[in-house]
């Protein structure tokens, strides 16, 4: 086991190097660089640009250096904690991102809780009452969230929340609390704004969870030990929960690892629509304007979390489920 973990950790290193290179390539792929998109943006607002100033900025930002040099500067910088400088914000990347991480994590955790709260009962009911109208109805409800395009749902909910409840549009709290200290009012404001993103993001995740829970439960429920239990008179609910449910939950535990990156980056599109102060919109804006250090470092961070997450998931799964063969070479 230790051998396995050790090997995986070692394998992570080349993987991450490859990933970092690919990330950098991807960010540089669209033609032009940050300054060009900056100039283009100024032009479209009618502001004029001094070519000399742009040239000076270019050399100051190091955008005129060859590709490999830029890559090496960035990647070696990351190794000792220097994630680079964001052109758009004029601040180090860590300051731009770190500010928003807290709220992002909160939203993500609430969303996950919400998803579980909805998916569990529906999944369990669906498995035990297969093909009934209740099954159909509830699964329909659960899948509705998946089927509706998030961005449209978000906008509609935003509008109606404002018209009906008077909640200010977008954001995670009323603007005056943004930089203020935490207080009861601020908390209330956050809760008022929180439910829309949680519902919009959460409902799209419920479908997947319902489906997997249902499938796993169905697998278990047809096993002989369940029949035995029923024959012996164990009450149905207890029978459901005590063994099959626990076995089916294996994958939840294993999934936690792979949920790490999405907790940090949190549903970018919905965040953009709802104008949430989370990390998702920053990432999208950085990619669009080719703010390469911000985009690159953040993506690298997410990639690292994913790789770690996959490792954690695999280990957890192996520990929980001895049926899975870890490594296999053909025995012949």
């Amino acid at each position, binding site marked *: 086991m230790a051998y396995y973990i050790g090997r995986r950790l070692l394998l992570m290193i080349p993987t991450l190097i490859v990933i970092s290179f690919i990330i950098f390539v991807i960010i540089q792929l*669209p*033609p*032009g660089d940050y300054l*060009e*998109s900056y100039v*283009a*943006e100024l*032009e*479209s*607002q*009618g*502001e*004029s640009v*001094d*070519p*000399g*100033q742009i*040239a*000076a900025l270019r*050399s*100051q*930002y*190091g955008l005129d250096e060859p590709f490999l040099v830029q890559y090496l500067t960035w990647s070696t910088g990351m190794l000792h904690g*220097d994630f680079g*400088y964001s052109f*758009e*914000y*004029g*601040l*180090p990347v860590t*300051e*731009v991102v770190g*500010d928003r991480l807290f709220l992002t994590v909160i939203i993500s955790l609430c969303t996950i809780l919400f998803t579980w709260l909805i998916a569990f009962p529906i999944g369990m009911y669906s498995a035990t009452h297969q093909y009934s109208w209740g099954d159909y109805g509830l699964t329909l409800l659960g899948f509705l969230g998946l089927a509706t395009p998030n961005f449209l749902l978000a*906008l509609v909910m*935003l*509008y109606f929340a*404002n018209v009906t409840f008077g909640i*200010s*549009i*977008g*954001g995670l709290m009323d*603007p*005056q609390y*943004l*930089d203020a200290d935490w207080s009861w009012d601020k908390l209330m404001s956050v809760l008022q704004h929180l439910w829309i993103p949680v519902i919009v993001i959460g409902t799209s995740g419920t479908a997947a969870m319902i489906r997997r829970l249902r499938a796993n439960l169905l697998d278990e429920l047809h096993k002989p030990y369940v029949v035995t239990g029923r024959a012996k008179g164990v009450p149905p609910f207890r029978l459901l929960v005590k063994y099959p449910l626990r076995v089916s939950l294996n994958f939840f535990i294993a999934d936690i690892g792979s949920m790490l990156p999405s907790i940090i980056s949190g549903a970018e599109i919905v965040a*953009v*629509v*709802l*104008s949430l*102060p989370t990390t998702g*919109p920053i990432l999208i*804006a950085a990619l669009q304007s080719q703010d390469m250090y911000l985009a690159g470092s953040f993506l690298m961070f997410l990639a690292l979390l994913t790789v770690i997450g996959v490792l954690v998931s695999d280990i957890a799964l192996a520990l929980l489920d001895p049926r899975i063969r870890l490594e296999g070479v053909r025995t012949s």
Partner: protein
Amino acid sequence: MKGTILALLLMACAADAAAVPALQEELQETPLLSQQVATGELAPIARRLPDPPYVDTLSTTQADTEQGQQGGSIRLLMGKAKDVRQLVVYGYARLIGFNDRMELEADILEAFEVEGNRRFTFHLRPGHRWSDGVPFTSEDFRYFWEDVALNTELSPFGPPVALVVDGRLPTVEILDRYTVRYTWQNPNPEFLLALAGPSPLYIYRPAHYLKQFHVRYADPDQLAQRVEEAKIKKKQWTGLHQRQDHQYKFDNPDLPTLQPWIPVTPPPSEHFVFRRNPYYHRIDSAGRQLPYLDEIVIDIASGKLIPAKTGAGESDLQGRYLEMSNYTFLREGAKRGNFDVRLWSSSRGARVALYPNLNANDETWQRLLRDVRFRRALSLATNRHEINQVIYFGLALEGANTLIPASPLYRPEYRDAWARFDPEQANRLLDEIGLQQRDARGIRLLPDGRPAEIIVQSAGESTEETDVLELIHDSWMEVGIKIYVKPTEREIFRNRIFAGDALMSVWFGLENGLATADMTPAELAPTSQQQLQWSEWGKHYETGQGMPPDLPEAQRLLALYRQWRHADQIEERRRIWHEMLQIHADQVYSIGTVTEVKQPIVVNRHLHNVPESALWNWEPNAFFGRFRPDRFWLDPARSNSVAGGQ
């Protein structure tokens, strides 16, 4: 009317709006600051103002402006954190600025003299202080010129382009503590315009603040430590200085400024607060220090959501990010949100204009696009009336891409040139050129057999543009020309035009449709690579690379522009402008559609002195700037909606 007044001013001495010298007894202390004055933290008002201050007498001379009261806070919405620089634009504190009569007038300066557009003498206001209380003197000008502009490390490409005339630098003389003089060998007619611009040319710096970052003045160890802490690339002091020296960016609370409001919130943030500048140099005629508003708050939200938020009443003064298509929605929310929706007009030459690329690489197409009959035919085949009705409710002004009626240089024949909808004449012109043959779909064939299909490059930003192009596509099909619209990212859009790969592009029309004879006609001549119809020629003018214009009319335009720069008399400048406008009207270098498209402006019901209707543009109005937001005031007791109106 406007032209002559402007002429007088530029030739004569300082415009003196401060006709009434401020009397000490008449000055009133600002309520917000009175406590700080009482404890001694701030000097009393008499010592905070320069002598003489700028006295804003507009409220006594103009009917719809009134004297206000100090106090209050308003909210604005912006789409990106960078947009806080709009407060420099709106604040509009300039050395010399445009006043309500579109004349250049001394603002921060007390007075200025211009001799032959070559020698400019500026007089500062004695006692004028930066926002941190340090005096504003000619030292700030000297620091900029000698230690920033001429410093080869800080400015490797030399001083700003607007200060260089025909390759020569000015002679800068610091005459005394409050007087500076700039002298050039050749005229520099754009100098004052650059100083008055929305994104102004800064010829001064807060020297006392920046000296701590300059290698010549700072303690070497301290400087090195600061550079280290700020994690500057390559550990160069110039990087740190440049990072701190950003008066236009307006995101550094420590940087002293002369604007009416000072940033208080350090980035990053979504909620930026700006407080009144206690040392602002303007007062109203009752002796109250401007600005009236104590505080401006800028909230950052996603650009697409701003119309929704404005409609919900979350903004007190909004124009940016609002479009004509939002008007109905805003009106529906106006009562609940306690605001008015006013309709200003935009002043671009055209809202949507097509630019045939005269420098296209494809030979056949280049010949065709350079044939003026082809361009005229395309313009005649454009149904501007339909565009106006379908997309702009008939409220826009149809015509070619040229000046708007409010400009003193406007003539109706410029706007009507080749701009009526006449498919028969268009067909005739195209037949005349030799494109008589058509294919099965009715599209004309080029001499080499290819169908006349033009790919129009678009920056793909607005659905409005797509809609206009859809209508143009249909009307051009009637004369046998088919267009494909290719939306691309902005950088690709420009690169393809620069490289000559794009046959035609679509963009806004003339940036400054409200030009006067003293404003630069650079847009009309091939002077910049950014011009979409002749970027190759423009690049030649800027950098000397590439090809100079080889069409006689374009060469004439360039020659006229050079003449304008050296012209001394206003009549000569006016004559040059008209000749250039006439060439454009004849040659149809761009195909305009409509102009004076309405711009919704949302104003809180209790905010006064915001014009009822005006022109919304970058230059020269600086959006709200020229209308003096420092004069806007809040009156919670009184609402200013007109009964029965909005």
